[in-house]
């Protein structure tokens, strides 16, 4: 009994410490992004270096909401993709090679989001298998090509399972995502995983994407 109390007390102290640490950590500043008034974001399909081909479009279908909620006007990714394809560029690798001036002439974005996926899929461990995503996101100034913001995103399902068990923040977000899924026979596991990963990365209190103009004007 005494031991249990001691244990729970130290667990409690640890939790308080964790919350304090989170509260005290300074968010990083992205001055280049603060200086330009980027609101219109063109999202290109990611360069996918992982063997999981589906990662490309799973990522692409789960990035609009986190970007939009952060306060940016995201060009409709399905429309952009169809338009580029209709103009003869069909592969994501090729789309990532399109020069800035051509993209500007066609879409007039303020910024472009480039993504490199290094891992997207299931990892198999001895007793367990888990979803894992490793990607680099880079937001580039459409006028100059300068980097405005970047983020190395690593998502490990095992960490998420722990937090879900706590009924914590992530558990609630994933709950919300699941409720929204439309009934269909599709394998939605990676849709949810990818949503979670993108949502968590962009909302990272330390180096997530700073709040953009759409939300700043709304909240005034």
């Amino acid at each position, binding site marked *: 009994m005494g031991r249990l*109390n001691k244990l*729970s*007390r130290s*667990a*409690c*102290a640890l*939790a*308080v410490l964790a*919350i*304090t640490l989170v*509260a005290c950590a300074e968010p990083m500043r992205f001055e280049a992004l603060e200086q330009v008034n980027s*609101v*219109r974001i063109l999202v290109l399909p990611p360069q996918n270096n992982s063997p999981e081909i*589906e990662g490309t*479009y*799973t990522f*692409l*279908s*789960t990035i*609009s*909401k986190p970007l*939009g*909620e952060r*306060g940016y*006007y*995201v*060009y*409709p*990714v*399905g*429309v*952009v*993709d*169809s*338009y580029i394809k209709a103009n003869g560029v069909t592969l994501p690798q090729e789309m990532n090679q399109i020069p800035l001036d051509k993209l500007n*002439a*066609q*879409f*007039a*974005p303020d910024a472009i989001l480039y993504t490199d996926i290094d891992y997207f899929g299931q990892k198999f461990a001895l007793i367990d298998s888990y979803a894992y995503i490793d990607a680099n996101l880079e937001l580039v100034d459409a006028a100059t090509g300068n980097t405005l913001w970047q983020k190395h995103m690593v998502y490990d399902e095992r960490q998420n399972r722990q937090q879900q*068990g*706590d*009924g*914590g*923040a992530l558990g*609630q*977000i994933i709950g919300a995502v699941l409720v*929204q*899924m*439309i009934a*269909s026979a*599709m394998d*939605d596991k990676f*849709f949810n995983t990818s*949503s979670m990963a993108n949502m968590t990365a962009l909302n990272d209190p330390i180096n997530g994407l700073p709040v953009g103009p*759409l*939300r700043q004007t*709304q909240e005034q």
Partner: protein
Amino acid sequence: MIWCVTLSCKQKIRRLPLAVGMAALAAACATPTHFHWGDYEPVLYRFYESEEGISHQEQIELLLNDIDKAQSEGKKIAPGINLHLAMLYADMGDMASAKRFVEIERELYPMSGQFSEKVFAKVLAWEG
């Protein structure tokens, strides 16, 4: 799990900041979205999954339903959804509807103007 730990904390001083922290965290999670997104992303997922994965008609029904829901919730429909609809209608040859949705998007989000002038040039030039 953390809640149980909280309750078993004996010292009130320790319990308080944790409870406040967790409450703030819970409140932050419960914060509703700024825009109504509905089925847009699942529609995109199935749109990309395979050409046959979801018909134009099915996408249109789901997205129109979201526009209704957004209105009844008093929320702004998320950026881009009207343009996705416009693309579907244009594909199906319904230029009047396509044009209407491009114009709705421009009213809601004026920053979509330059994009639409290029990408939906044919739609905007259409005269019924």
